């Protein structure tokens, strides 16, 4: 870990809690003394990361049984206080907890030991179950359905007998007691979890359900044995049916919720399955079948029609149509052929034809793996609203327990009706489940992330939706963002005949063939058309925002902008002015070529505006965003595009670092910037912006860039994602409102406030209402998936 300690110190100064920072250069080890009353180890860890360094760390992911908001914040709080654990983040929608720890302090078995000390059911997540959530148990389905049926039967029989005023025999009460016991036995897991949470002093919705059930069941039992205090107006068997009803409804509701969540995740699981396909590798004359992840790069893989392409690579033989919809959202298959050396991605499907592909990236290096990983990472991110919701649920549960106790005391002592006291307390517990509030936000975010990924938009952080709506200014990179990004060479102007044209083209083509830049691509395409050969380049160097420099046949060839040539010490720039004027008046870009530090040629490169750019910009302006360009291109070209699109401002001839500075500078004035760049050159700028959007055809999206990655490479998806954010925000609010309406409307009735008017609820009715609120939140969120397929542009 080579280290410029200065950068880290600066981050620590921001935190204000680091008291001492000792660093040993030879081992790369650092000792940081911090004040843990101000910040935690996770803050220090993030500080080091913000400074651009990483710490040696290991990550363990655990699947926790039935993780809910209360349990999640309890685990996070406990783990973050443990020495050696850098960070701990939970994801409720996948029931997983990610622990980032220091392998010098803790071993992986230590982490497991700490985890088991928390007293929760868990198992360690293995690689192959990446992105998979709870294990889908058939036995759980059977248990839930059975307990629901018995619960409903018991409740209906009890209501029927009450309505018809049938005298209750002792045998009948025994039957109720047995039925209720069966229901309780079938849902033992809910009770176990509920009381465990209560014992940890962090009660959850399960705790409330458990309290409700246990109170009513025990009171029923006491009545049956004749030891319960007598009450009025209520028959004792009501308490058995109440406990059976509550658990029957709750268990079934949990099951339904789980089913719906799973269906939302199925599109991601479908992608995961593709990761573990088989590949047929061509070895000499034979074809050998191996696991896709074990294919070595550079080997040739055979794919037949109807098969999933197992590796990222380049087509070297055959042709066919490939369905790339899971990456780009584009429904029409794309033609791929060996002639044009088209790239293909692992996880796409060869619809027809036959391909042989040379693998360039396999297993964890593939685009598919990265997309799945980013979807999973996004699940771990907690937006601000979610943290607030977490805290609220924690407090709310205590409030309900307090309310339950008050109800018990009021009806039991002041009214002296112990049966009613028990019933109303049980009803309060069963009704006031905060689970709908707890799942409202994560549900909407998770589903939006999945919805976006189906359209070819990868969301890397859960709070992107919030941030997009907070942004006030949008800055676009030009090349590859507002323009198609496939520039082509219009002309090569030779300004100095020190070498003949053929040699000069040979030099230019050789150097540019080493570069990945879009302009270099334009030049190499030009070279191929002209049939120019290329040779070996020594000491090739690429300077982002400037150009490239290479040595060939002992000649130094510099290709780039004015700044590069100035820095290389090239003078005689006055020759250039006339050509520069001609080129930039056309909106093209001049690329300068120097040989041994004297100017020899100017390459005229031009690009076209994306067809949808104008519509997208107009729409974004109508939403009130200020819009500008920050480009590395020359003034003439940038100015022309900025005017054509009627942008608010434009900056030109910026190096990547200057773009970063520009974004930082505008943000320091309190504006929040949405930066859209091409992901390769703009990685740093994308990372400092309030929201960074990386555009790019699937193949070249860099791993680090972007809170949002538009793998579809469609500018119009920017509009899609902003609209989706608005929908997500609306869902948050709707979900929270739903949850509140149920709770606030029903609690007074549950507490027996209107009993004298004949309006009251029994525990099982409360449970049914609660499940209704829970399911309505899930269904409401799920509508995001359907709606997101349409977009205004």
């Amino acid at each position, binding site marked *: 870990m*080579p*280290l*410029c*300690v*200065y*950068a880290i*110190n600066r981050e620590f100064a921001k935190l204000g809690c680091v008291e001492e920072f000792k660093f040993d*250069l030879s081992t790369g080890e650092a000792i940081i003394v911090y004040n843990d009353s101000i910040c935690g180890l996770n803050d220090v860890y993030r500080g080091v990361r913000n*400074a*651009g*360094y990483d710490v040696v760390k290991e990550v363990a992911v655990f699947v926790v049984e039935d993780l809910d908001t209360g349990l999640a914040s309890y685990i996070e709080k406990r783990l973050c206080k443990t020495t050696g654990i850098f960070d701990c983040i939970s994801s409720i929608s996948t029931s997983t907890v990610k622990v980032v720890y220091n392998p010098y302090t803790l071993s992986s078995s230590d982490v497991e030991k700490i985890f088991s000390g928390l007293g929760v059911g868990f198992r360690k997540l293995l690689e192959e179950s990446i992105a998979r959530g709870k294990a889908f148990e058939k036995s759980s389905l059977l248990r839930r359905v059975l307990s629901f049926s018995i619960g409903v039967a018991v409740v209906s029989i009890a209501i029927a007998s009450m309505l018809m005023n049938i005298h209750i025999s002792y045998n009948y009460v025994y039957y109720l007691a047995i039925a209720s016991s069966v229901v309780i036995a079938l849902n033992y897991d809910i009770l176990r979890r509920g009381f465990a949470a209560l014992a940890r002093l962090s009660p959850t919705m399960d705790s409330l359900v458990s309290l409700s059930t246990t109170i009513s069941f025990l009171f029923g039992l006491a009545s049956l044995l004749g030891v319960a205090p007598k009450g009025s107006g209520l028959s004792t068997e009501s308490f058995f049916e109440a406990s059976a009803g509550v658990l029957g409804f709750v268990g079934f509701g949990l099951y339904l919720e789980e089913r719906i969540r799973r269906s939302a995740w199925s599109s991601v699981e479908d992608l995961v399955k593709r990761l573990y396909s088989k590949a047929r590798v061509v070895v000499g004359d034979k074809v050998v079948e191996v696991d896709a992840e074990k294919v070595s790069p550079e080997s040739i893989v055979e794919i037949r029609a109807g098969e999933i392409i197992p590796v990222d690579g380049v087509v070297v033989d055959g042709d066919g149509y490939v369905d790339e919809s899971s990456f780009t959202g584009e429904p029409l298959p794309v033609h791929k052929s060996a002639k044009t050396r088209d790239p293909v991605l692992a996880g796409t499907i060869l619809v027809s034809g036959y391909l042989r592909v040379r693998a360039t990236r396999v297993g964890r290096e593939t685009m598919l793996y990265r997309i799945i990983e980013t979807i999973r990472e996004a699940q771990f991110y907690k937006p601000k609203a979610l943290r607030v919701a977490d805290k609220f649920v924690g407090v709310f549960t205590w409030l309900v327990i307090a309310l339950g106790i008050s109800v018990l005391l009021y009806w039991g002592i002041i009214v002296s009706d112990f049966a009613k006291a028990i019933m109303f307390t049980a009803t309060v517990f069963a009704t006031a489940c905060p689970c709908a509030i707890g799942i409202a936000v994560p549900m909407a975010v998770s589903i939006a992330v999945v919805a976006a990924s189906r359209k070819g938009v990868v969301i890397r952080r859960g709070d992107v939706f919030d941030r997009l709506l907070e942004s006030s200014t949008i800055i676009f990179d030009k090349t590859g963002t507002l323009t198609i990004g496939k520039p082509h060479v219009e002309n090569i102007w030779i300004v100095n005949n020190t070498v003949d044209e053929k040699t000069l083209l040979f030099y230019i083509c050789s150097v540019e063939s080493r570069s990945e830049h879009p302009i270099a691509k334009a030049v190499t395409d030009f070279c191929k058309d002209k049939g120019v050969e290329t040779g070996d380049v020594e000491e090739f*160097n690429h*300077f982002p925002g*400037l150009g490239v*420099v290479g040595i060939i046949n002992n000649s130094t060839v510099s290709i780039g902008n004015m700044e*590069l040539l100035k*820095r*290389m*010490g090239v003078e005689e720039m006055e020759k250039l002015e006339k050509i520069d004027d001609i080129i930039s008046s056309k909106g093209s870009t001049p690329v300068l070529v120097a040989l041994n*530090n004297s100017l020899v040629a100017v390459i005229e490169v031009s690009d076209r505006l994306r067809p949808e750019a104008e519509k997208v910009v107009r729409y974004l302006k109508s939403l009130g965003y200020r819009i500008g360009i920050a480009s590395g291109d020359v003034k003439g070209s940038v100015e022309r595009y900025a005017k054509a699109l009627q942008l608010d401002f434009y900056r030109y001839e910026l*190096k990547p*670092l200057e773009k970063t500075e520009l974004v930082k500078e505008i943000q320091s004035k309190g504006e929040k910037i949405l930066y859209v760049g091409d992901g390769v050159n703009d990685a*740093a700028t994308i990372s400092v912006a309030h929201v960074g959007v990386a555009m790019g055809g699937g193949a070249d999206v860099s791993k680090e860039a972007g809170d949002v990655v538009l793998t579809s490479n469609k500018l119009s998806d920017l509009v899609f994602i902003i609209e989706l954010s608005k929908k997500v925000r609306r869902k948050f609010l709707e979900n929270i409102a739903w949850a509140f309406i149920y709770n606030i409307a029903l609690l007074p009735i549950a507490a027996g406030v209107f009993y004298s008017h004949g309006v009251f609820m029994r525990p099982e009715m409360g449970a049914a209402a609660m499940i209704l609120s829970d399911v309505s939140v899930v269904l409401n969120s799920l509508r995001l998936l359907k709606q997101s397929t349409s977009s205004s542009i």
Partner: protein
Amino acid sequence: MPEYVDPVCGMVVDPKKTTYKTVYRGRIYYFCSKHCLEEFEKNPEYYLTHGPRGMH
């Protein structure tokens, strides 16, 4: 193979391995980190006349 030294912090840098580099006054400079490159870009003359500042 000449030794390349990061002009900001003074560390020896392998030009083949680093991605942080820039060109100034006809010469190529290599850096150990993004931070050093940024520092250099802000004020190249300072580091070329004063030499590396060393570690803090």
